[in-house]
């Protein structure tokens, strides 16, 4: 776009600032115990204040409350959303971006404030406003704009019960590939959550690229041959910046480990065993221990690794107990 086109485009998008996303959205159901129970069960949250009315009455809450993180769910569209995509104001804004090549979309962060606990019987209504659109920014994803929407949640008395700020980046995919967009078409079903990927920069990208190709490498100083992991740009022994790498045998032993139970982050399976592994080559690496009950993992246990596709997007080293006699 030339400067005039950019100006015209920006006039169009900035005209959306302050607009309500649509009429206030009232939840289909009042806050209710069955939905609270389903949520608590799925999230693995065993706090009695959500499900055990007797314990809840005796707690400081004085009765069953909804988990605060359910706030947004009470006013959600429901299953109908999967069929006809709602043509709200925000969608219209995204369309303007898409038409100008800003097809990429990335949810960058969300912050939520909770003003009071919700109790069964409360009726929640969501009021969403396009709050702000940034100036043009150069990001690692490409040139783009940050859009902030603010949703205020009110109860049956019109009192505010919570507030959520949601920030997305609409950008021109840096490689010019429009298919990098994950939300530019209207018929996608939500993808299963995947593990959080490492950013890839000068000093580590080569290592992760090799993992994608099924190889686990260890960086080696070309001058003094010292191995180092995690990779870094200079040898701490001789200050050489010349390096190459060797391929790891992926054999070693557990130096320490811990099993994670809570909180449960989407994209990961729990209980989740993480370990620091001493590789036979002499360096250490953090990875997961799989193929064994986490209760049976011990420090000193011999392990052998594979590089595996652990979800739709992620290739990762995973370590198993070494077979006896191997």
């Amino acid at each position, binding site marked *: 776009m030339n400067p005039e086109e950019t100006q015209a485009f920006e006039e169009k998008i900035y005209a959306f600032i302050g607009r309500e996303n649509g009429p206030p959205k009232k939840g289909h159901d009042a806050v209710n115990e069955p939905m609270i129970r389903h949520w608590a069960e799925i999230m693995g949250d065993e706090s009695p204040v959500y499900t055990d009315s007797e314990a809840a009455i005796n707690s400081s809450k004085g009765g069953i409350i909804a988990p605060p993180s359910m706030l947004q769910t009470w006013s959600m569209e429901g299953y109908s959303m999967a069929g006809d995509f709602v043509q709200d104001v925000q969608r219209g804004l995204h369309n303007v971006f898409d038409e100008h090549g800003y097809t990429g979309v990335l949810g960058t962060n969300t912050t939520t404030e909770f003003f009071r606990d919700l109790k069964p019987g409360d009726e929640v209504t969501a009021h969403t406003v396009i709050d702000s659109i940034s100036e043009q920014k150069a990001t690692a994803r490409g040139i783009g704009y940050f859009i902030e929407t603010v949703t205020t949640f009110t109860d049956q008395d019109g009192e505010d019960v919570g507030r959520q700020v949601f920030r997305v980046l609409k950008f021109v995919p840096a490689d010019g590939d429009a298919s990098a967009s994950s939300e530019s078409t209207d018929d996608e079903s939500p993808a299963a959550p995947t593990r959080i990927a490492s950013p890839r920069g000068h000093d580590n990208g080569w290592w992760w690229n090799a993992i994608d190709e099924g190889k686990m490498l260890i960086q080696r100083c070309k001058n003094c041959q010292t191995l180092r992991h995690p990779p870094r740009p200079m040898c701490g022994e001789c200050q050489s910046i010349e390096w190459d790498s060797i391929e790891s045998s992926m054999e070693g032993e557990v130096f320490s480990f811990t099993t994670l*139970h*809570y909180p449960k982050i989407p994209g990961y399976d729990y209980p989740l065993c993480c370990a620091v592994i001493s590789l036979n080559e002499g360096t250490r690496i953090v990875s997961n221990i799989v193929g064994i009950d986490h209760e049976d993992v011990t420090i000193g246990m011999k392990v052998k690794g594979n590089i595996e596709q652990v979800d739709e997007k992620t290739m990762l080293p995973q370590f198993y107990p070494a077979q006896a006699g191997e």
Partner: protein
Amino acid sequence: MNANIKDKAAIVGVANTEFSKNSGRSELQLAAEAVAAALDDAGLKPSDVDGITTFTMDTSDEIEVARAVGIGDLNFYSRVPHGGGAATGLIHQAVMAVATGMAETVVCYRSLNGRSGHRFSGGVSGDITTSDAIHWGWYMPYGLLTPASWVAMFTQRYMHLTNCTKDSLFEVAYTMRQHAASNPAALFYQKPFDRAEYNAQKKIVDPFQLYDCCLESDGASAVVITSTERAKDLKQPGVVIKAVAQCAAADMEVMTSFYRDEIAAIPSMDIAAQTAYSQCGLTADDIDAAIIYDAFSPIVLWQLESWGFCKHGEAHDFVMDGALRLDGRLPTNTHGGQLSEAYIHGVNGIVEATRLVRGTSVNQPGKTINHALVTAGVGVPTGGALLGTMDTL
């Protein structure tokens, strides 16, 4: 009072990398190259350096640069904010540190791919690949995402090598809660727990259950510091800072220093403790009470060892003797700590340590408190301070 820094420090080495529109390498590598070249210019070895300072805006972490160059234990590290206004601020930091003996040799740096990478003309924000983000990338894909999980990794190793058990973790958490239970300001005022209740809490990460983990809370704490001379004329009895030290030990990562020969220890706090003691000539025997950073129960044990209250690996026996209780050898976290009073990032601990020395803690121990210790969080570069009464001058 004038800062006595005249003639105390000098610039002894300088270097630039080349200037270009596209360096073809990371900001971290540029920083490492410039630092190594400046040391070469000065005729110094990386191991001669014990201090480092940069801009808050720099994307290359001080400890990452230190590790890359092979610099060892750091006693001084700082950042100066406000963009270009920081330039001579780096000299200011280094001179202060050297003149006061906080560091012997301080290296200052600033590194940026200001053209090929993040351009200031493009505005602030976006997805920047810093050395810090890359650091977390070694752990995020595996799910090692929370402070509890990072600390647990050290704890499991520590429990494997020593006789530390859930009994000593319980003793720490229980004692803090007892103190909070009689502190009206604490979030857990009048809410003590017993072993059965402790055992019944949900698992967080092995070996931690809920009560091994600190609170999350709103609040603020503040501390006013002035000269000792001036303090003599003020309303409250002065609390003298006898020593203060900080350290990022060699081969440090933020929360994930898993690559040292042994990880069942916190060398950063070991070194900070030794430094603080040597500043003032006090020893562990002189310390009457302590505020020990307690984000998680076991980190109290390690710090007791760092500060010499017991030998390395023997904190279990020390605490099981009731040492942390109000009538014990070292009444600790008399406010209830961050496990049970509130989590204000340790500054509430400085407030309580001051009150202990004044003799005004809500849980003031029966014995006289001449000297108290207060520490900072561990797993990260850390430190501690020794406080004393005016009578100790």
